[in-house]
């Protein structure tokens, strides 16, 4: 009873699916994707830095565009700050079966601690399926160009893991990665989280609490805004995020249907 229409130009047969068929097909495709139901993401996040970066990764591996088709997303994107895929990322991508980006769960008030100039982030990587092995993980923070500094002025940006958070006690911090940034530098700063994120996956209660500290060349702790670092309150296309590359540790078969 469904309408059948032959497109003479292409020679393809087009048929409109009945609603029952449509539901069944959607169920099958979701099953192949390994999803229990259709995801419902927030509508306003499409032009955030993480999806743009992930689309960049997607385009890197899509070597046969005729098989993939083009997304409206690629043409709809305005001229944004592209969190460019590095050769290091391409290498990780070749080894990975899956790549996931994670948004910062801390709100602005939590992110910028009142008693300190440090910033704090929280990422929940517990949604990585069991049996996956993390091959690489990165925290990406955007740094804007800042005026009023000498071109040769440098800052030290350090990322720490917050080990404990007892009430009324000083937190224990573990240095994860550190790098120098020139005042004139502009672009994404990438920090390695590979070994720590693997540990987080095992002990999910630690839940990726990160602290970012900026020091000037004299070792004085400074507000990260001073060096042009962008927090989650900044422009959408420059917001910090974590990207994790992982590989299935075993061949998994879908249940027979």
């Amino acid at each position: 009873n469904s309408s059948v229409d032959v497109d003479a130009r292409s020679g393809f047969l087009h048929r409109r699916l009945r609603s029952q068929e449509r539901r069944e097909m959607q169920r099958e495709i979701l099953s192949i994707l390994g999803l229990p139901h259709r995801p419902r993401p927030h509508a306003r996040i499409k032009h955030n830095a993480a999806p743009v970066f992930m689309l960049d990764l997607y385009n890197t591996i899509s070597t046969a565009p005729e098989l993939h088709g083009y997304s409206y997303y690629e043409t709809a994107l305005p001229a944004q700050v592209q969190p460019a895929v590095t050769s290091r990322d391409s290498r990780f991508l070749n080894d990975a079966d899956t790549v996931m980006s994670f948004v910062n769960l801390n709100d602005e008030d939590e992110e910028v601690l009142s008693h300190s100039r440090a910033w704090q982030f929280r990422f929940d990587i517990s949604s990585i399926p069991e049996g996956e092995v993390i091959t690489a993980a990165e925290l990406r923070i955007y740094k804007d160009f800042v005026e009023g500094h000498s071109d040769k002025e440098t800052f030290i940006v350090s990322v720490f893991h917050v080990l404990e958070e007892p009430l009324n006690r000083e937190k224990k911090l573990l240095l994860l990665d550190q790098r120098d940034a020139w005042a004139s530098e502009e672009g994404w700063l990438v920090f390695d989280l590979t070994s720590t994120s693997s540990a987080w996956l095992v002990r999910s209660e630690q839940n990726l609490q990160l602290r970012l500290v900026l020091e000037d060349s004299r070792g004085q702790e400074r507000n990260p805004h001073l060096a042009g670092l962008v927090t989650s309150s900044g422009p959408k296309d420059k917001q910090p995020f974590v990207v994790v590359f992982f590989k299935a540790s075993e061949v998994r078969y879908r249940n027979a249907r």
Partner: protein
Amino acid sequence: SAHKGRQGNRSKPQRTSQDAMKAAEAAADSLGFSKEGCKKHELYVSFRDLGWQDWIIAPEGYAAYYCEGECAFPLNSYMNATNHAIVQTLVHFINPETVPKPCCAPTQLHGISVLYFDDSSNVILKKYRNMVVRACGCH
């Protein structure tokens, strides 16, 4: 089953086989079997038509293809038939009730990648192997 023949009669089984092929083709024609051989057909899965673009970032859809057609005489080379499929086609003609025709199925599959949001607005890029039919054949 192959019977040992005398040396002077070596060409006989070949002739018998050719005759069997001709007879089978004639039988297939007379029974009105489809002339459409096993081949790749277009099947485009459109995520846009499904209204999934709120969570699937890319691709917009993909050309999956499927294999369909008759695995019957003649199993020409374009069908990419296995040796066993040729034997099975012959045996099917001898005993159609017991032995089915070979199946038209994918012989070469390629992967695709899908980029999508999850419920927490995280983004997932996943490689799915063996999703796109590149070639079909008789098995």
